[in-house]
């Protein structure tokens, strides 16, 4: 079988892959290839026909396809090669990339690989919701693609479980399409999606949000007939006697996203149990040399703007790697401390200028996020309000990083 050499193979042509490609090209890397399994570039944005994208990156409110278009245009302007309808099915530790396409089985030997495969949605199986197994249970992203890409209506009377952003957006979308959304039920005492989406997707449409509630049973042997909703206590356990039965024909789940890991695992990339994505250093290099990751494959982003910017930063690390300028061993661990769910990168070299990305564990007001190395405070960010839904970023000054002691990020 033919194996073609490539400097960089980018797996996934969503916003992360596109931004990485453009940035790499601008840094002088021309021997690039984007491999995308769909017919078109653009990733998940193709189905996000609502607006609100690009506020940070372009200071403009764009729809998903419009936002993606900007990057696709940049890719095309530069004649960066890409192939679509081609699915990468194998990735080895030494960066052999194998893909299936109608034209044949394609194999590349890459000097560097960029993982930008995005994420997948958590399913009913992962939640283990009791009850029967009828038709009419969808994850929010699947419902979104049915409606927006396939022009297909999933139901008429809908209950939404989970207040993730896609669920909130689907509550509005389904309502606009004539369905009755009975309510959004969230097990946590606070919404897990962006405040903006709660406002614009639920409140503006009079759709109730029930916090500290979850679905404890699905009814219907063929198509969904209804769900049992239970109020939960602080430990998230259903409170006996606090159940209600809600008749509906559709249950939409918006209960979280998980980085797409199949290929990362094949390439022996170490994963982080908190982000569920690869562990990386400040140049977004994974534990497997020459394999980099950015976007939702690395950790789940709330805003696409941060995805693009992350991928642009990654490009520099890839270029260094291609030059053989292996930065010093990345030996300083970065730890998530009190009040922080996760922090990225998990490891940095003392010559790197890391952008730390993190999330707080619970909603809080008037806090400070502190980055500390031993006794020394490296950075501090004062926040009037912090929500787990909203990613926080802190850029560190490499001059300040002196020792190779672990760094800790915590809320005070």
């Amino acid at each position: 079988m033919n194996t073609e050499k490539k400097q960089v193979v980018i797996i996934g042509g969503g916003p992360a892959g596109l931004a990485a490609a453009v940035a790499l090209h601008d840094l002088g890397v021309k021997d690039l290839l984007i491999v995308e399994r769909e017919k078109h570039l653009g990733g998940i944005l193709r189905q996000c026909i609502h607006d609100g994208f690009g506020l940070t990156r372009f200071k403009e409110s764009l729809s998903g396809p419009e936002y993606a278009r900007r990057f696709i245009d940049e890719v095309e302007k530069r004649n960066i090669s890409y192939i679509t309808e081609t699915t990468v099915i194998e990735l080895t530790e030494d960066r052999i990339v194998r893909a299936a396409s109608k034209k044949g089985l394609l194999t590349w030997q890459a000097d560097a690989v960029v993982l930008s495969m995005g994420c997948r949605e958590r399913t009913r199986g992962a939640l283990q919701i009791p009850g029967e197994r009828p038709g009419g249970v969808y994850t929010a992203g699947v419902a979104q693609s049915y409606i927006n890409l396939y022009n297909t209506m999933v139901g008429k009377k809908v209950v939404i479980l989970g207040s993730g952003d896609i669920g909130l957006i689907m509550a509005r979308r389904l309502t606009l399409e004539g369905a009755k959304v009975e309510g959004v039920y969230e097990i946590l005492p606070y919404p897990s999606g962006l405040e903006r989406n709660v406002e614009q997707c639920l409140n503006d449409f009079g759709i109730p949000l029930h916090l500290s509630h979850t679905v404890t049973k699905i009814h219907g042997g063929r198509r969904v007939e209804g769900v049992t909703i239970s109020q939960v206590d602080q430990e998230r356990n259903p409170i006996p006697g606090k159940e209600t039965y809600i008749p509906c024909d559709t249950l939409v789940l918006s209960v979280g996203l998980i980085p797409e890991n199949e290929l990362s695992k094949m390439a022996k990339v170490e994963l982080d149990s908190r982000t569920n994505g690869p562990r990386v250093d400040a140049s977004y290099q994974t534990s497997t040399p020459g394999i980099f990751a950015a976007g939702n494959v690395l950790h789940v982003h709330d805003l696409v703007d941060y995805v693009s910017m992350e991928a642009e930063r990654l490009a520099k690390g890839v270029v260094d790697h291609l030059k053989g300028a292996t930065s010093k061993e990345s030996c300083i661990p970065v730890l998530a401390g009190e009040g922080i769910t996760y922090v990225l990168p998990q490891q940095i070299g003392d010559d790197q200028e890391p952008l730390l990305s993190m999330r707080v564990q619970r909603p809080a007001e008037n806090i400070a996020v502190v980055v500390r190395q031993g006794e020394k405070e490296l950075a501090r960010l004062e926040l009037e309000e912090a929500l787990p839904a909203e990613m926080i970023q802190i850029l560190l000054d490499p001059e300040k990083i002196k020792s190779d002691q672990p760094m800790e990020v915590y809320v005070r």
Partner: protein
Amino acid sequence: MKKYDVLVIGGGVVGSAIARELSRYQLKIGVLEKNPDVCLEMSARNSAVLHGGFAYEIGTNKAALCVEGCMEFDEVARELDVPFIRTGKVLVGNTPEDMESLKETLRIGKINGAVGLEIIDEKRLKELVPAVEGSFALLSPMSGILDPFQYTIGLAENAVKNGARYHLMREVTGIHREEDGTYKVETSKEDFRTKWVINAAGLGAVKISEMLGITGYKMGGTRGHYIVLDKAVGDLLPMPVYPVPSTTYMGIHVTPTVEGNVTVGPDADRVTDLANYGVEQHNMDYLVEDASTLWPHIHRKDFIRNYAGIQPTWLDREGPMKDFVIEAREDVPNTVNLIGIESPGLTAALPVARRAVQLLVEREKPEMNSNFDPTRKRIQRFAEATPEEQAELIRENPDYGEIICRCESVTKAEVLDAIHNPLGVETMIGMKYRTRSMMGRCQGGYCQMRIAQLLQEEKGLDVTQVLYAREESELFSGRVR
């Protein structure tokens, strides 16, 4: 009205095995199945274990047919291209009482003819299954695991290949013996006429039996829950691990699947509703708790699905029924009645079918079908091929280059093959059991819509006609405006 020599009622593993064995003869064979597919009931909702035959009462059909089915399975698996691994199996014990029970099981097993049974010590146990908790075990080297969907579908497709006809979505509602001695079989859709009736209706067997005029059987149900674990833990379980069995029930076990997942279960909950496969929270919690003492690798992060199966619990005039009944009563001529085909009905399906067919053959003396071909190929799986073979597959058929299901790497070529299967089903579950699409960690998040689309295109279905599993399980309510 369609006319047959034999109508088999029920298209599960037993009915399909009967249809296939009947098709060795020159007979006009029909199978009536109420569901849109052949494996939606017991045959799809079990532990998928090929049992060794040591746990059944000496002298019963169950014991004999189980051993027979176990020993011959390699051949039928080869003929029908059914994924099957003779993994062996252990029953794990800790206490002196456990040891006594296992010795008794060993004794019974030897009399039943189960091959190779031995009691092994902790060291050997840990060599066989390093991740298990236990002090000693009974090892049954002939036990194994199989793909129950492929087995049932394989039998059915092979029967069709040899001339049998399946009528799906035909629930039998009444049976009448006509003046000329033939039977009129009424279904939810149309009536059929036939000389012989074979009752292989599983959980519906008592009803059919009564329609035939054979009374005296009663049935309750026991629901067993299962949790399916991710392939990530599959390597930690090379063979099924069971606790020491009680006299009534095998206990909650952990079982590898031929595809590399692990199933945990089943428990045993008495139920009266035999159509409700609902799963309860406390049962699932209990599964995890109980099975973790045997095999401590059951973690939430690896849960990808759950399901329940219903075992019939049978009674006859004397009380609890201990054996399979395979009968051809002279007072109800031209019928074969199967009652009580509970576990190990998957293992024993073929021997059960041969007994049932034998009863007909003795009386009817049909000619042999000289064109009978025992083989069937399952859909060629892209994911199982080597890169060279994959390249070749795509060269021959470019649809092999289009991945539809990302988790299991199922291609468009496979999905199209499944859509055009010999039985002709139009459901998502039907695709799933034939191709493994939608069975991976994302449970169809990526591929379901593509498959729904292909189904509509290939079968000319309207968007509202795409079914999830059963009748009236429509996936969509219509178009967006």
